[in-house]
């Protein structure tokens, strides 16, 4: 498992995507096929299951290391991760057999069949072979918590480099039903070429943020105006009677959105639509974060379908009767798109706005929030469907974000990977009774040195501790920026924010002068 431990460390020690990809490629070059397959499985949400609970593993570790429980607790507090604490406190390895990753996975799974005492004996033996970094991974394997610091997307890039296959082909192969127990590396990656070509999406054309004065875009009649919907940008493809839904990150999301399956009947074959997956209920878009549970779960529940149904808001048609339309002007594609309008409840065509002047465009943008939108999309009527983010033809004209000054009230330590650094902060505003009410939690936007400074300060100004969370003296004011705000019954403040981030630490800001809850409620309107 030495090479796998090395891969883990490399992924853990760099945040740079190209370095992560390079590390994985070089691992693929040297690893055995079965290890490659398991690594791919772990990076595509197919981890091997849990064999032991952390409680049992911890009990055995104390016995093996012959340490008192309190000392283990103290160590755990320091390290912040149970599997890692165990790996570190065990006496140094005696050394011995070196085995592959898949050997240890099989070893762990075979344990399940054994009696308790046999299990323990086997685990002790395994521990005695390994240095701490391998023990850590082994412990994570046993307790079902092994996560590698890399997205599926990057893994696909690395795998494409390693195999010489195209990225979306690799993505397609990995989306099918497979498990490392039933297929080999070769079978998984080198079978079914045709099927992959069948699902293939077009590269997305992405709009550029418009930061200049829109007047500079020239003649207003040369442009098409739509609202900027805030969902998940996607392509919906039907070929040979099969439906495929691709996200912009080229992830196949077909199974996450069973609503769209009805489109197989209402849409013609050989079509590719560009649009937005939009949570939508009672004639209105819902906040995007309500889709989150659907995306992380393996299967979609009935409850999720009822609570957050989705529509597909179509912007563009890229393929029609099997032929590629991307070089045709936008207006021509739009005409075709509008023919699809009555295609059913689940497919909406993004409405065009009648805008006669740039002043109107600006006014319309500022009204975006009334429509639960992020602004306007401004597209040149003659534009082809290009690929990637190109300047000139498509612009997103975003409504300026909301901001409010808020008081820091709670700080939360990062998890195992950020042991002892406070990384998440809860902010509050004043309510009518003069009490501070927490309304949002975020850590993004703060620089590393600000995090260090805050951590130091939090330690000295703690009022109370609740596990990893500390309440602190209300002393610091921060300017919080966010893209949207929604009503919420789950929060005491009655609101939740979209994409909150810290823009500024107002070092001279007075706590008494921070924002009011009434101000936030105003923004809801």
């Amino acid at each position: 498992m030495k090479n796998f431990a090395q891969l883990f460390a490399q992924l853990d020690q760099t945040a740079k995507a190209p370095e992560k990809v390079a590390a994985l490629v070089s691992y693929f070059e040297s690893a055995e096929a079965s290890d490659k397959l398991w690594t791919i499985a772990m990076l595509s949400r197919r981890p091997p299951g849990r064999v032991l609970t952390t409680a049992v593993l911890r009990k055995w570790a104390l016995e093996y290391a012959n340490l008192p429980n309190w000392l283990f607790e103290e160590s755990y507090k320091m390290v912040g991760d149970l599997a890692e604490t165990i790996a570190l406190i065990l006496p140094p390895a005696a050394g011995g057999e070196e085995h592959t990753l898949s050997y240890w996975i099989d070893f762990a799974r075979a344990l399940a069949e054994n009696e308790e005492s046999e299990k323990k004996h086997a685990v002790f033996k395994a521990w005695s072979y390994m240095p701490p970094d391998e023990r850590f991974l082994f412990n994570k394997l046993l307790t079902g918590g092994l996560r590698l610091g890399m997205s599926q997307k990057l893994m696909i890039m690395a795998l494409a480099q390693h195999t010489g296959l195209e990225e979306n082909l690799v993505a397609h192969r990995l989306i099918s039903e497979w498990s490392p127990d039933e297929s080999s590396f070769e079978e998984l990656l080198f079978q079914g070429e045709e099927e992959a070509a069948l699902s293939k999406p077009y590269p997305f054309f992405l709009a550029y943020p418009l930061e200049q004065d829109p007047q500079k875009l020239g003649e207003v009649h040369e442009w098409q105006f739509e609202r900027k919907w805030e969902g998940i940008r996607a392509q919906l493809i039907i070929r040979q009677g099969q439906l495929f839904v691709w996200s912009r990150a080229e992830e196949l999301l077909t199974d996450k959105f069973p609503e769209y399956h009805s489109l197989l009947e209402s849409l013609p074959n050989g079509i590719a639509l560009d649009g937005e997956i939009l949570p939508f209920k009672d004639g209105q878009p819902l906040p995007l974060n309500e889709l989150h549970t659907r995306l992380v779960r393996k299967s979609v529940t009935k409850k999720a379908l009822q609570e957050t149904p989705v529509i597909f808001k179509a912007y563009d048609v890229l393929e029609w009767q099997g032929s590629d339309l991307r070089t045709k002007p936008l207006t021509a594609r739009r005409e075709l798109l509008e023919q699809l309008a009555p295609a059913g409840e689940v497919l909406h065509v993004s409405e065009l706005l009648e805008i006669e002047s740039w002043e109107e465009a600006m006014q319309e943008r500022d009204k975006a929030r009334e429509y639960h939108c992020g602004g306007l999309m401004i597209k040149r009527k003659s534009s082809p469907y290009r690929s990637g983010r190109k300047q000139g033809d498509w612009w997103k004209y975003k409504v300026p974000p909301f901001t409010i000054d808020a008081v820091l009230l709670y700080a939360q330590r990062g998890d195992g990977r950020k042991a002892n650094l406070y990384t998440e902060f809860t902010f509050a505003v004043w309510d009518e009774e003069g009490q501070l009410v927490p309304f949002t939690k975020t850590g993004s936007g703060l620089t590393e040195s600000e995090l260090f400074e805050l951590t130091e300060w939090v330690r000295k100004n703690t009022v109370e501790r609740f596990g990893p969370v500390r309440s602190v003296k209300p002393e610091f004011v921060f300017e919080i920026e966010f893209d949207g705000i929604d009503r919420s019954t789950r929060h005491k403040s009655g609101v939740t924010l979209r994409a909150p981030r810290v823009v500024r630490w107002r070092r001279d800001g007075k706590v008494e002068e921070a924002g009011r809850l009434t101000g936030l409620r105003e923004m809801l309107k």
Partner: protein
Amino acid sequence: MALLEFTDKGIYCPQANVYIDPWKPVSRALITHGHADHARWGNKYYLCTHQAKPVIQYRLGNGPRIESVAYGEERTINGVQISFHPAGHIVGSAQIRLEYQGEVWVVSGDYKTEHDGIATPFEPVKCNVFITESTFGLPVFRWKPQREVMQEINDWWRGNAKEGKTSIMMAYSLGKAQRILKYLDTRIGKIFTHGAVESVNKVLQSQGLKLPPAPKATIDNLRNGMESSFVIAPPSAVNSNWVHRFKEYSTGFASGWMAMNGTRSRRSADRGFMLSDHADWDGLNEAVLATGAEKVYVMHGYTSQFAKWLNEQGIWAAEMGSEYHGEQSEETHTE
């Protein structure tokens, strides 16, 4: 009256009227080693080992009176016999032994039990009362042999050099900087240092330490072959403008705290290496046992935990001076 007391100025011997590593100015100070948190400004008289003196002199200038003794050499002050014994922490570092009317106390200062090839190796000293440090007094801290860590560092350098990147290693200018420098594989490329490291190197070289050539990383010096070079600098420099003279580079950090994934990723370095000039868990335990002490006082780091552990092992132990050492001083304690 105890032979040593813990006061708000530091560890004090009333019989000899001397302090050990005092943190406020006093008239007579016994100094374990040259790190800034041990050899502080403002005392009138300093006593340390011959090997520790040049660095202390360099740091404090010619103002105060600094005297030195050989390891094991005895001085008697008002009936108290005082001697310095190798602590293995950095060049010249010492444990200080005090004996009066047959009772022996030893103050460890900072120490490590692994022989690093630079500092005079740690020697346990028998005593009745041992005052030990416990910077890494938890069982999660277990060092790899220096040879393995140096191999990791050289491998990292080799990898960076191949990609045309400079390797910038953050290391304290006294201690770890020389330890790393001494074992670098000079076949890989050139070695440069930050001015702070270079000055300390010069002081130590003049007292006989052998190190590979490592000139100051001036813009002129860097002109040729910078891409594949190795640079040693204190952590503060790497977070300042100084670092802008390098084009493509990767940063490393060598510290005992790098034992954990969490602290590795929290550090703003690209790579963390587990290398410490302090004793690890096993080292602390061995050292305490080897003194045969009946009583142990614990200072620095995980004091309450290590004291509790020793008590459970049947050795009387107590935390020392936690009232003088807040959370803050722990973080500045030179590692």
